[in-house]
C-alpha cells in the first residue's frame, strides 16, 4: 500500500468507463435475450443469468477495490471485510435458494392452471 495520497484521477475515469461498459452489455443482453443463452440451463438457472451475476460481481469488485479503496487497505483488514460477507452470504443464498426450489417442487404440482 503506497498509501495513495498520489492522485488517481486517471484511474477513476478508467473505472467509470469499465462500469458503464459492463452495465451497457448487461442491458443490451437483457433486451436481446438471445435464445441460446436465455433458454439454456446450468446449475438451476440460465446461462444468461449466470452472465448477469458474474458481470455484477465484476462491477462490485471494481467499486469496492477502486472507489472504496480496498486495494489500499492492509491485507488482513481487507480480508476481514471481504471474506466475512462472502462466506455468510454464500451460505445464506445457497440454503434459501435450495429451499425455494424444494418448496416449488412440493407445492407447484398442487397449483392448478
Amino acid at each position, binding site marked *: *500500500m503506497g*498509501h*495513495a*495520497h498520489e*492522485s*488517481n*484521477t486517471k484511474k*477513476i*475515469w478508467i*473505472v*467509470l468507463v469499465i*462500469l*458503464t461498459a459492463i*452495465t*451497457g452489455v*448487461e*442491458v443490451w443482453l*437483457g*433486451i436481446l435475450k438471445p435464445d441460446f443463452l*436465455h*433458454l439454456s440451463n446450468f446449475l438451476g*438457472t440460465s446461462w444468461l*443469468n449466470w452472465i*448477469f*451475476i458474474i458481470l*455484477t460481481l465484476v*462491477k*462490485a469488485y471494481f*467499486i*469496492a477495490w*477502486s*472507489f*472504496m*479503496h480496498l486495494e489500499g*487497505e*492492509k491485507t*488482513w*483488514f481487507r480480508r476481514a*471485510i471481504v471474506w*466475512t*460477507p462472502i462466506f*455468510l*452470504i454464500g451460505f*445464506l*443464498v445457497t440454503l*434459501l*435458494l435450495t*429451499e*425455494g*426450489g424444494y*418448496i*416449488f417442487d412440493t*407445492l*407447484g404440482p398442487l397449483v*392448478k*392452471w
Partner: protein
Amino acid sequence: MKSNSAVSSNKKETWSGGGVKPFGASYGKMMMWFFIVSDALTFSGFLAAYGLTRFKFIDSWPIADEVFTHVPFVHGEYPMIYVAIMTFILIVSSVTMVLAVDAGHKMQKNKVAWYMFATIIFGIIFVGSQAWEWNTFIKGSYGAVKTTEGKILQFVNEDGKQIAFADFVTTERLDGREQHTKKNGLWFVEEPTIATYSIDQIIASYNAHPEVQVRTELITDQKKKTILSREEGTAQLAKTRLVVEGANLEVNEYGNTIFADFFFFITGFHGFHVLTGILINIIIFFNVIVGTYEKRGHYEMVEKVGLYWHFVDLVWVFVFTFFYLV
C-alpha cells in the same frame, strides 16, 4: 483507577480512537467499514428472501422487462432503458465522490466542495427517478383482472402484445356503479376508489372483440407468459373476482402480489439509504465550505461518507441485477 479499556474514554479524542490505528485504519473509518459489512448482510438477507420467493413461484414470476418499460417524457415501451440510466447516474455520482476524496488528499477545498455538490445533485436525481419509477409502478400501465383462484389475467391483442383496458373496453359499465362520494351519496359514508371498469363490462367487451386474448401468469418453455385460446379465456374470465389497476401491497396487475411487496420493500430500503446518504453528504458539504476539515488538517471525513455513498452504489448494482435483469 486504571481503566480496562484499551483507549481512555475521558479524553477529547474518543471519537478518533485516541489516535490508535489498528491495520492502519482510523477508528472512524474502521467502524464505517464494519457498519457497511453488517448493512451488506441486511441487504443480502432481503435479496435472498426475494430469491427464495422467486424460486417458490418460478413458473409464474412476473417478467421484469414487461413490467418496467417506461421512460419519463417518452411514449412507447423501452424495457430497462430507464433503470440503466438510473444505474449510470448512481455510478457517476460515485465517481464524483471519489474525485472529492482525491481532491481532499491534496487539500483542495474548493474542488472537494464542488465534487461533493455534484454528488448530492446526482443523488437527488437518482431518488427522484426512483420516486417516478414507484409512481409508474403503482399507477400501472394496462390493468388486469384477478380470479377467485387468486390468479392474474392480462389481455393481449392478436400479436400477443399486452393491451390496456382502454384499448378494447368500449361498452357501458353495465352495473350502474358510480364512485360514491360525499356529494352524491350519504355524506357520512365513504368508499375506497372503485375500478374504472366493471367486471361485466370487461367480459362483455372481451366477447365483442374476437382479436383480444387472455394471458395468464404461467411461464412456458419459451419463457413467455401463456396465452389462452378464446374459449379458455372465456372460462377463466368467468372466475373474475376483482379488477386490478396498478400495484400496491395487496394486489398487483403485473402478477404475484409478493413481487410488488418485495419491489416496494427492497427498492424502498435502498432509496432510504440513498436519502440518508444525500443528507449526510449535505452536512459534510457545508463542513467543507466552512473549512472544518481545512482546520483539522485532513479530509478523512469526506473519505468516510464516501465509503457509505459507494456502498449505496454497490447495493444498487445488485438490486439492478436481481430485480431487473435476472
